[in-house]
């Protein structure tokens, strides 16, 4: 009995940490830009499939997405050439250089047959900028839209990215190598090394975000844009840049989560949506604004998922999403108390 409980606990913790990176992304994006990003899970899929391609020696399709996105960015900026050709040429030049660097990096990595961790870094560099690009295409043009408009847009983004994923990778699942194969017996439970990797990476990501936002001026500017957009503008903080930065960091966290998760479940084009929604259930616990409470939320989600998979595996997802009802009721009573 204790063996089972311990096993479920470890499994739940591992799941929880994967969702924690998602919840972290969702809270970061929501606080800075007021976007409830349903599409956040798609970066999980992009991260996992990019890593799968790199590990199996193929040119990852993400590279084409990235280059296409950069090109579209340059086209959208075309109006600036007339007003200020210097700035515009610098900007377009920067986009071209970024595309070339991405191409060179990918080719180099494939030629060198980097180990899994190296490939993860390359995949991260390819996926994270997509977050900033999607911000540029969807949020940047309409900064004052209502939350509901952004929700609908993000559903659209989610569907489009999933469609592109299907187009590029097809419907087949791809196996992904773990950072380290095998595991270790700790007492009665067998723990995979990948679980340790997930733990370490999640802690590093959270710690990194904390240090960045508390100890650097740019991090403070990110917080400032989250707390008061107008006030941030009056300080001369470019709020579109902080929004893009939030999207980029969130995409990076989610992509990492996908790369860590993929070896446990194999990667496919529709894996992201589910993971994203589960991160969302956890994030809802903190109202998408509270990091610590969101962490509690994702741990509950992870725990419930592994227990229900054991007790009634067919109802696993049903049970996890049902959790949203008590969470929303609880938040509702809490906000009423605060309003009083």
């Amino acid at each position, binding site marked *: 009995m204790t063996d089972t409980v311990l096993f479920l606990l470890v499994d739940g913790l591992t799941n929880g940490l994967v969702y924690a990176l998602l919840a972290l992304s969702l809270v970061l994006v929501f606080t800075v830009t007021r976007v409830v990003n349903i599409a956040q899970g798609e970066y999980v899929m992009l991260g996992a499939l990019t890593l799968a391609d790199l590990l199996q020696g193929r040119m990852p399709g993400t590279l084409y997405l990235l280059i296409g996105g950069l090109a579209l960015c340059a086209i959208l900026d075309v109006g600036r050439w007339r007003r200020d050709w210097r700035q515009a040429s610098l900007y377009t030049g920067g986009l071209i250089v970024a595309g070339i660097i991405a191409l060179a990096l990918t080719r180099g990595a494939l030629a060198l047959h980097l180990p899994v961790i190296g490939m993860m870094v390359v995949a991260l560099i390819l996926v994270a900028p997509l977050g900033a690009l999607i911000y540029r295409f969807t949020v940047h043009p309409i900064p004052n839209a209502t939350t509901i408009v952004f929700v609908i847009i993000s559903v659209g983004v989610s569907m489009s990215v999933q469609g592109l994923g299907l187009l590029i990778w097809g419907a087949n699942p791809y196996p992904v190598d773990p950072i380290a194969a095998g595991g270790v017996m700790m007492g009665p439970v067998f723990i995979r090394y990948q679980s340790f990797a997930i733990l370490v990476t999640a802690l590093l990501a959270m710690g990194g975000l904390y240090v960045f936002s508390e100890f650097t*001026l740019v991090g403070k500017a990110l*917080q*400032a844009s989250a707390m*008061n957009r107008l*006030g941030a*503008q009056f*300080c001369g903080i470019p709020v579109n840049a902080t929004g893009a930065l939030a999207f980029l960091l969130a995409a990076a966290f989610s992509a990492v989560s996908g790369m860590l998760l993929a070896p446990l479940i194999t990667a496919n084009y529709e894996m992201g949506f589910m993971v994203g929604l589960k991160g969302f259930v956890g994030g809802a616990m903190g109202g998408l604004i509270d990091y610590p409470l969101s962490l509690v939320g994702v741990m509950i989600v992870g725990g419930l998922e592994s227990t229900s998979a054991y007790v009634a595996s067919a109802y696993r997802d049903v049970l996890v999403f049902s959790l949203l009802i008590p969470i929303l009721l609880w938040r509702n009573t809490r906000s009423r108390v605060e309003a009083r």
Partner: protein
Amino acid sequence: MTKLLEVANLTVGYGEAIAIDDISFSVARGEFITFIGPNGAGKTTLLNSLMGVLQQASGTVTFAGEDLKTLKPEARVARGIVIVPERRELFPGLNVEDHLRLGAFLRRHEGRAKMTAALDRIYTLLPKLKERRKQLAGTLSGGEQQMVAVGRALMAEPQLLMLDEPSTGLAPRITEEIFEAIDRLKAAGMTGILVEQNANLALSVAERGFVLEVGNVVAFGEAGQLRQDPRVLAAYLGAGDRYREAMTDT
């Protein structure tokens, strides 16, 4: 004197409604002007438009020879146009020193020594901020929050400082403290636009004043002259003010 800011036939509206109707004025370097007028006259709208938060419907705004029309707020801050907003627009979860550092966000590459020197200058001007350095802005009193807003704006090293109702909601003693700081800035050569409901206070600081009513300038002139203007006396310096004070006291 060279003109720092020139506003010609500026019109600003919210959709169909016109809030600022064809206003022209200019500010010379080293000069402080004021806009006085009742609530809803368009004073805040005027400053928000100069800041680039609101689009101008027509007219031109020229700052140091450059047309500002297409510039976003952050670009205007970079050129030295800085506002102390009416609602202060602070960051409740950040402390006082963070606010001041963020005020100098665009000058962050100038190095640690310059940042420290700038912080010291603010702390000398507004000593209360030094005591409260590590306190979160959300927990400060109204007066202290106003000082943070002023300090944050000054950290940007403004060419043109715009103050939107700095006395709103503050006790007289605190208001005095804030205006003493403004006086000292003026003495040091700061150019500014002050928007106030308290006409007496405003005309004691500024050299020239404009009376704004429903989006139009209805009177303007030297501060001394305006104080003698019978219309201004009746509406803003006389019985009206006392009436308003009586209302707010209860």
